[in-house]
């Protein structure tokens, strides 16, 4: 039961006073946001309508202490659909700002910068879909330098910056470069000979799979059960985390093909993540073609909400294509 005596009537104004939070008052709780929410598809406990409703009613402590306020990945799928034109992720950001000021901590993990290695090149600040990275003057080993700094209120741990950083100065728990390379090659998978070299009976495929493109645990389980000598799955927080260097590493060792699975256009949880993933694979493809390397060794597949269970078929398709005799490119 909600007791009106326990409500903090000032909370709505508090949220509205923070830039981005001013539209909270416009919410009439229709639930269109919840119906379109991409996070809610995986985690039904998350409901943006409820958070806005509770904040509007003044349930201050309950909102600030809830884990849900940190789940919104600010993909903004709800924003264009909201009949009241509320930029909901901005309201969520305002609520988080208050929570941080109150001493609550975002659960993370966050991208972390090795300031001794960082050159302040600003590649990551351009890459971040959330503007969560800024270059700031920091004292590093007694010398003030402009280096990348991550804002924990804004970082959604998509890993896009980790891939983009050209000097390997950014890491993200579980998805650092060395961790991914270790997973790619675990059990000596990369050292085994490929189908092209005539040392395997089936084309060997490495698949980088965005965690959001799999719609259920059952789907993950199916994929996991398919792992074998000819298929290695490495999951990524987002297809934008894929590193072209790792694709080349796999292809130059025992992999015949590398498949990158991400979300469809407009369904990315990290705004531009899937765009960056697709762009990297597209550009790498032109590089491989220019080198005269057999086409089709790298592929990006998009998995939308209606593509449940499609990935095993797409992997089989790629495998069949890699069995075709190589076409010589002039």
């Amino acid at each position, binding site marked *: 039961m909600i007791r009106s005596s326990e409500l903090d009537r000032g909370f709505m104004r508090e949220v509205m006073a923070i830039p981005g939070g001013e539209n909270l008052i416009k919410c009439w709780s229709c639930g269109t946001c919840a119906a379109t929410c991409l996070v809610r598809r995986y985690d039904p406990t998350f409901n943006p309508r409820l958070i806005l409703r509770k904040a509007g009613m003044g349930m201050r402590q309950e909102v600030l202490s809830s884990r849900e306020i940190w789940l919104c990945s600010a993909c903004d799928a709800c924003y264009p659909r909201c009949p009241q034109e509320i930029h909901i992720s901005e309201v969520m950001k305002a609520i988080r700002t208050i929570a941080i000021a109150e001493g609550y901590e975002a659960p993370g993990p966050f991208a972390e910068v090795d300031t001794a290695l960082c050159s302040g090149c600003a590649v990551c600040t351009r890459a971040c879909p959330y503007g969560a990275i800024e270059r700031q003057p920091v004292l590093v080993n007694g010398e003030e330098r402009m280096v990348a700094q991550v804002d924990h209120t804004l970082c959604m741990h998509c890993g896009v910056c980790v891939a983009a950083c050209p*000097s390997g100065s950014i890491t993200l728990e579980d998805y650092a470069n060395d961790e991914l390379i270790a997973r790619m090659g675990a059990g000596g998978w990369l050292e085994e000979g490929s189908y092209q070299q005539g040392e395997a009976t089936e084309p060997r495929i490495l698949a980088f799979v965005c965690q959001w493109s799999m719609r259920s645990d059952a789907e993950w389980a199916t994929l996991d059960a398919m792992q074998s000598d000819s298929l290695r799955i490495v999951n990524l927080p987002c297809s934008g985390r894929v590193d072209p260097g790792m694709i080349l590493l796999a292809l130059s060792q025992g992999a015949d093909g590398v498949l990158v699975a991400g979300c469809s256009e407009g369904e990315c949880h990290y705004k531009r993540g899937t765009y960056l993933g697709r762009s990297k694979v597209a550009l790498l493809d032109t590089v491989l073609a220019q080198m005269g390397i057999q086409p089709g060794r790298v592929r990006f597949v998009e998995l939308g909400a209606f593509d449940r269970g499609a990935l095993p078929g797409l992997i089989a398709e790629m495998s069949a294509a890699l069995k075709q005799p190589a076409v010589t490119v002039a």
Partner: protein
Amino acid sequence: MDKLKLAVYWASSCGGCDIAIVELGEHLLELAKLADIVFWPCAMDFKYSDVEAMDDRHIDVCLFNGAIRTDEDEHIAHLLRRKSKVLVAFGSCASEGCIPGLGNIKGPDHALARAAFETPTTDNPERVMFAPRYAMPEGDLTLPALTVQLRTLEQVVPIDFTIPGCPPNHEQIWNAITAVVENRLPEAGSLLGVDPRTVCDQCPRTRLGKIQVERFFRPHEILPDPERCLLEQGLVCAGPATHAGCGALCVKAMMPCRGCYGAPDGVLDQGSELLDAIVAGMAGESDAEIRRVVSTIVDPVGTFYRFSLGASLLHALKKSPLESGQRCETQRDGARGEGEHA
């Protein structure tokens, strides 16, 4: 202590590395006091027989510039490895293939045919091909033959250190030489004559960090703002993915960094890191937009791997190391084009 015995060699290179050593200027006089130059074919009169006559490990330090492009280069690489205590891959060709390494995209047979028959300035009605052996009345003339792929020094013999750059900056060369003389060498396999981090660390240009590039330009197509980051203006600048050491020379002269100091520490493949960094700043959301923006990058391999192709994962993907050292098709014994005096 005896004077240091120093050797300098050029394999397949443009000569720029030797010029960079001459650029030491007055340090050359100090160098003459510190070291005996026992072999430097570009600058002083030596013969291969002089090197062959040396005891093994006679040379203290050999600065080897140039890539391994011919069977002669390969022969001398093995010889100098045997005669040297410390073998240094000097400059971009020896360490990562450099511009000549781009020849690996289409291979030497393509390059020979292009040079012998196709360039606008070629006048070769009899279609004579460059041949490694040519019979003259006085006897056979021989030339070294090209190998199937250009290789870096390390792909042929073990090396001790690398001094990157095209060419290495003369101040960095002097730093490296004094490190040798004062016995301050880092652990084997390290880079010598570099600064920490990447070129961006030394670049004075301002970065907004938010610009998204609508299309890419080649340097001659725009007049960039002299103060602002070149990458943010749509020029493919390799600075973010290039080891510091040059002092950001090119960017200070309005040219985007071309990447000659190679990959930053711990980075596997310079070209793919640059590719990733470039994509991060690209505008757009849709596939059509990707195709449009990507299509404005002319010659992606030459742009991303301008210097590092020979040592890259991309190169490893193309050719097996076993095949790379064979003579190219055009110049194999008995192959077409073997010249004879009419």
